[in-house]
């Protein structure tokens, strides 16, 4: 094993352990914090794979924004401190079966399909900010513009959904 592989495996173990805790913990806010750990480890995995920009986008968007959004959601739905009893539904056994089956199929396919594929890790060229920038604005302009329409739609949607709260505050702090 090369040094990159060892680092990657360690990070992978962290990411997996944190992910397992996210789906099994009985404390809501802790689940969000384990999610941060998992995302952070995945960001480090991206760094090992020389996808520099993607790694820091992952940190900025997921850790700095999406998780805070999730924490807001948890707090606004009044999660208590300490364990909550009814976080899991009745289909846990079925869920375990499906998850194990998915993992089995995917891993088998991957091992059989890519058993002898090696990545050559050098300096990041396509993964650096200028590499990505050049590619987006040369080949990916249309999807990029469509993305802005999607974001606009999402923004309008969220505002409309929270519309009942707009206006003078009734019982919040001001």
């Amino acid at each position, binding site marked *: 094993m090369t040094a990159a592989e060892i680092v*990657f*495996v360690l990070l*992978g173990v962290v*990411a*997996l352990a944190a*992910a397992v805790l*996210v*789906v099994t913990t009985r404390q*809501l806010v802790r*689940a969000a914090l384990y999610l941060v750990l998992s995302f952070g480890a*995945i960001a480090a*995995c*991206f760094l*090992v*794979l020389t996808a520099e*920009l*993607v790694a820091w*986008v992952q940190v900025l*968007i*997921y850790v700095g924004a*999406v998780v805070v*959004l*999730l924490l807001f*959601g*948890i707090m*606004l*739905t009044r999660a208590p401190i300490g364990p*909550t009893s009814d*976080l*899991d*539904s009745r*289909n*846990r056994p079925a*869920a*375990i079966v*499906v*998850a194990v089956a*998915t*993992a089995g199929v*995917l*891993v088998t396919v*991957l*091992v059989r399909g*890519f*058993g002898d*594929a*090696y*990545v050559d890790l050098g300096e990041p060229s*396509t*993964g650096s900010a200028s590499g*990505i920038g050049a590619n*987006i604005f040369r080949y*990916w302009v249309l999807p990029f513009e469509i*993305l802005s329409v*999607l974001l606009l739609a*999402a923004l309008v*949607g969220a505002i409309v*959904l*929270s519309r009942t709260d707009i206006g003078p505050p009734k*019982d919040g702090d001001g």
Partner: protein
Amino acid sequence: MHVLYPAVLSALLFSIGIYGVLARRNAILVLMSVELMLNAVNLNLVAFDVWLADRLGSGQILTLFVIVIAAAEVGIGLAIVLQVFRNRATISVDSLTELAETAETDSAGDRR
């Protein structure tokens, strides 16, 4: 580096996400599990992009797009969850079985 490391890691993360989506009752935890699955996909995209040394950078740019769409998705999802919580005082996906709001669920779920 062997391509199997990132690929297998991503497959396992994806399975954990599937477990979370199926087994969790709390809507926000379901959203978190969806995020895990999306991250697994991103990892796969990046790994294969680096392996193929794609000149267009398809994998990494698609990853960026996925991250953006995931952020939008989680925002809308949470807005819906908060709205459900306001109307019904619960965000357990099990108890949200009726698609149409009837008179009694309306009065049962009190406003905060």
